[in-house]
């Protein structure tokens, strides 16, 4: 496949996942849930939802009419319903099954993905902001500033970052904003190195010298000469970094250190699914696959961007 073709495929895959998570909960309404009979339905199960007059719903795999009333059976559980109380009957397909509380896994996946994505994206913005500032400052601030900043970057790179992050998360019990600070604050070093290197190599190029000689003010040079040449490498790096952040967030949530347990994210869904492995494989498998799909899509996107922005390669 050509580089442009790969870019298209990877871009479409990532865009579909992101759009699904962001828009999905707005468009698709979750099927009714029932923690008793409807729990732990396998993927692709078709269920019948019986809405009762007290506002609750019974979601069952099979509904049989007997003289005693309607017998609703689910995964190993049954309940007898008085037909007179049923106000409406609808049928749904649970594409990815349901969890222990009878909630649709697909719906949870979309809602959880929204939070995972938001946290990763915001920490990425923070990382690029810090890293970009440090990189530009190091490249333009003179020898001393450069030396000090780059030693700091080296020091931060040598940290067992996730180790510290786990420690901080264990003591601080973060809410989403703090999690963003933690993730972003520990992943800016690579961006700083990249930006510094790019600015230094650009500065030696003739077109920058030409702009300077022709009397362009510094902000004009920064905006029209430096910035466009930084976008390519930084965006490619960003795609890879976003994948790492999604994984880091998932890891923290898996350990129960990310967002509070009441908020679903892909990582915490895998954790809950892991605990329920003997009961239902689908609870852990699908969120894991969602993470993998996103991370791989981002990696391919980064790869394709690199091929496109480096004409020589």
């Amino acid at each position, binding site marked *: 496949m050509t580089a442009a073709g790969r870019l298209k495929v990877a871009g479409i895959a990532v865009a579909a996942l992101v759009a699904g998570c962001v828009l999905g909960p707005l468009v698709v309404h979750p099927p009714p849930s029932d923690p008793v009979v409807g729990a732990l339905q396998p993927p692709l199960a078709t269920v019948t939802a019986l809405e009762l007059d007290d506002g609750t719903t019974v979601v069952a795999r099979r509904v049989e009419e007997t003289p005693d009333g309607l017998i609703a059976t689910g995964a190993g559980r049954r309940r007898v319903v008085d037909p007179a109380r049923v106000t409406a009957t609808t049928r749904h397909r649970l594409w990815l099954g349901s969890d222990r509380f009878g909630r649709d896994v697909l719906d949870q996946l979309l809602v959880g993905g929204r939070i995972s994505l938001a946290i990763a994206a915001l920490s990425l913005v923070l990382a690029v902001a810090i890293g970009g500032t440090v990189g530009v400052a190091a490249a333009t601030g003179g020898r001393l500033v450069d030396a000090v900043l780059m030693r700091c970057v080296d020091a931060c790179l040598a940290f067992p970052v996730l180790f*510290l*992050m786990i*420690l901080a998360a*264990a003591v601080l019990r973060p809410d989403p904003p703090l999690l963003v600070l933690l993730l972003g604050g520990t992943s800016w070093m690579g961006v700083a190195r990249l930006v510094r290197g790019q600015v230094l190599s650009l500065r030696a190029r003739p077109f920058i010298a030409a702009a300077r000689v022709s009397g362009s003010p510094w902000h004009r040079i920064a905006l029209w000469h430096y910035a466009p040449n930084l976008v390519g490498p930084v965006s490619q790096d960003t795609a890879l970094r976003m994948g790492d952040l999604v994984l880091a967030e998932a890891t923290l949530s898996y350990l129960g250190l990310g967002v509070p347990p009441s908020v679903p994210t892909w990582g915490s869904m*895998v954790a809950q699914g*892991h605990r329920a*492995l003997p009961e239902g494989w689908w609870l852990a498998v699908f969120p894991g696959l969602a993470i993998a799909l996103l991370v*791989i899509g981002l990696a391919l996107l980064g790869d394709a961007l690199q091929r496109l922005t480096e004409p020589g390669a």
Partner: protein
Amino acid sequence: MTRIAIRRLVTLVPLVWLVVTVTFLVVQLAPGSYADTLDHPRLTPEARQNLRASYGLDRPLGEQYLRWLAAAATGDLGSSYLFKEPVAKVIGRALPPTLLLAGTALLLDLGLGVLLALAAARRPYGWVDRLTTVLGLGIYGLPSFWIAGLLILVFALGLGWLPASHMHSVGAGELSATGRLIDLLRHLLLPALSLGLVGAAATARLLRATLLEARASRFVLAATARGLSPRRILWVHSLRPALLPVITAFGLALPMVVSGSVVVESVFSWPGMGMALWRAAEARDIPLVMGLTLVGAAAVILGSLIADLLYAVADPRAREER
């Protein structure tokens, strides 16, 4: 060589100091202390205050910090609140399992990674190459805890071949020496695989790219012209220069291995540094947290130093530079 080593060893001290200081601040500034985690209903406020005083937790922050630092400089890490014994002893117990796990994982990482890359580079874009690329990408994208869960599901719960957690079976003490070793290896395999596979995928990906680069170089052309066998060219002439970036990546990957072992240890209840850090952080056991971070950071930084030295061994050019 020696000069580089000495210079790097000297820079190690401030780095470790920095890590330890940051850790101290994080643990101290977080709400709650060890006395609060003792959630005993009959503990009166006065008793709690006494407890705090007996651990020195009522002193000003600066004093606590300097005391710890002064003691640590003489090799005294204090004693753990949680385990009621010297921190050094707790670490001495937790370090060997982690070293065993991380070491095995690193061996798997390098061994599998190099083999896969060599197999793939023999015929670029052949089916072996395509298969390893796809598999490697898949593993790269999957979180290690997910792979761990899958391995448990298949090999422990499904097939029942290997144990799902812990380091020894119940009653392993009564087995013979060989029996104990086999028992340990059976417990080691799944955690080491879940940690090592992710690294192997990354190593294979990187090494394949550098091997292909080496293939296009002039010294390979020269070697081919001299009539050397393709196998010799691949294993001897291409592998050595291609391994250089792998060594660098290895040094950078060490923090990941340490962090990853925290995750994998918690999945498999492996009694190592990660589990200890976990429990210490939960209980606000400050001396133990500090001691574990000190050892962890020193190990990571020493590891990257070793990677640098290995680089100098593998690449003569790096010896003369700095």
